[in-house]
């Protein structure tokens, strides 16, 4: 059972979302609205110290990226990313793990 309604999701994206250009490998590009997080954090990769870098994630409605696969492109604020992982919450929203091109 979903916690929020479709109307609430739309309101949340309207308030906090940004426009991104979704360009799938198969199909034509379109603008989707989502919440873009790009925190600067330490990434541990097994060494004595970590590497500090951005961690770009994009939260959007699953319906807006129907059929999306790894390798699809997403452009946010003129910065090009490749979608590496698509994690649906099963309740209408998806989190996209992005890789900086």
């Amino acid at each position: 059972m979903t916690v929020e309604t479709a109307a609430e999701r739309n309101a949340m994206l309207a308030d906090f979302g940004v426009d991104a250009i979704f360009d799938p490998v198969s199909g034509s590009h379109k603008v989707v609205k989502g919440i873009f997080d790009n925190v600067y954090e330490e990434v541990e990769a097994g060494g004595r110290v970590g590497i500090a870098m951005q961690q770009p994630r994009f939260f959007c409605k699953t319906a807006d990226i129907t059929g999306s696969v790894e390798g699809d492109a997403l452009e946010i604020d003129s910065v090009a990313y490749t979608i590496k992982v698509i994690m649906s919450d099963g309740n209408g929203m998806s989190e996209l793990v992005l890789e900086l091109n």
Partner: protein
Amino acid sequence: MAHMRKQIRDAVITACTGLTTTGTKVFNHRAYPLASNKLPGLCIYSQDETTAYQSITPPRSVLRTLNIVIELYVKAATGYDNTIDQIALEVETALTDDVTLGGLAKDTRIIGFNSEVSADGEQPACIGIMQVQITYSVAENDPETAI
């Protein structure tokens, strides 16, 4: 003068500074994360050391085996493993050019390598961890001077 361990570590850092891929991005005992502008880079530190006494009458001579770790840091969307191997090539060549490190050591051997990768950031972060074993000898009452 300084402890032989520091002299040797400094010699390793000197040998690994100015390499084609990592240039001057060489760090000693760094505690803070490496930002993108410090990559590709190297972190070099002494990890541990064992000793073996070689004579009976004080001051005794001591053969020391120092393990130094050289960590190779790379961030890239593609080809990061190739870059790690390229850096390893440059480091190994630099270190074995003079295994005595200018007369400080008896021998320098690269005894192990492993690599790790993380995809938690905007691009994959790959780290190669090189184990370097260096043997040197000192008198127990003079750890600043190689014998």
